[in-house]
């Protein structure tokens, strides 16, 4: 089953989004990470650490600009066996939709289509 990965500039946004989602999508694996040095920021490392744990194809969400760059870079460097999708959907609402759809068994391609209708 598809997994969800969340990278935010803020640890709080990452944690809060995970909590919000997991309430409704208990069987979906969600990894979330954010922040830098106790403040706002992201790093490729955090993403790499999450990618190391990935066990299935994964949809990845980011919040603003530079986390996207880090995410793209980490995905480019990834040499594992799973397909990684970077979604441009809003981090909270997009990952929520994806996780819930995923937990009710919606196909990944269909989830990705739904996410594409969102715009941030």
């Amino acid at each position, binding site marked *: 089953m598809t997994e969800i990965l969340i990278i935010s500039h803020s640890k709080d946004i990452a944690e809060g989004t995970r909590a919000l989602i997991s309430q409704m999508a208990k069987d979906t694996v969600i990894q979330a990470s954010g922040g830098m040095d106790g403040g706002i*920021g992201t790093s*490729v490392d955090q993403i790499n650490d999450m990618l190391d744990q990935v066990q299935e194809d994964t949809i990845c969400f980011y919040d603003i600009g*530079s986390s996207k760059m880090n995410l793209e870079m980490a995905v480019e460097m990834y040499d594992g066996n799973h397909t990684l999708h970077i979604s441009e959907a809003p981090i909270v609402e997009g990952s929520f939709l994806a996780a819930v759809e995923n937990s009710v068994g919606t196909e990944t391609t269909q989830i990705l289509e739904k996410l594409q209708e969102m715009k941030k």
Partner: protein
Amino acid sequence: MNGDKLLEKMHGLKSVFDEKESELTGLDREIGDGDHGVNMKRGFSAVHEKVSGGTAPEVLKQTGMTLMSSIGGASGPLYGFSFVKMSDVAKEDIDKENLMEMLDVFADTVASKGKVEGGEKTMYDVISKSAELLKESGALKLDDLQALAQETEDMIATKGRAAYFKEQSKGTIDPGAQSAVYIIHALGEGME
């Protein structure tokens, strides 16, 4: 320039960014989120602490990996990945010509990762012109590099956080362009 010499330069950038922290943060406060000074300082403190030596390509690669992990802003992946990519073309003993090659790779990496071109008021405006500068003037003098950064002052930002400031981004040197001055100056020092 061998690995030892390069390491010395990379370690030396720690004190440069310690000193320039408030300058860079001041610029980023005008047209960004005000963390570029802290970011660069954190990045090169980590380099000072963690990069401990090897051949020139090895030092570049370690520096890149460390910057990627520790800077924490948009400049992290841009500088970090650029150093990693430069390590692919760097010789064990970097001469002026090899440095030009490295600077071209630096510019190409930022262009492709940042999806940026010249005139968008970013670090790219300094990086992309530095190989040319080295070729033409035979050196990477601080004044000449600073003049490149200065050119970003009147530009309107269209990439990164500064883009949100639109016309109001005019009148401030791009923070990344300014930090690029110090990095490239360090790479070029003693190569005249």
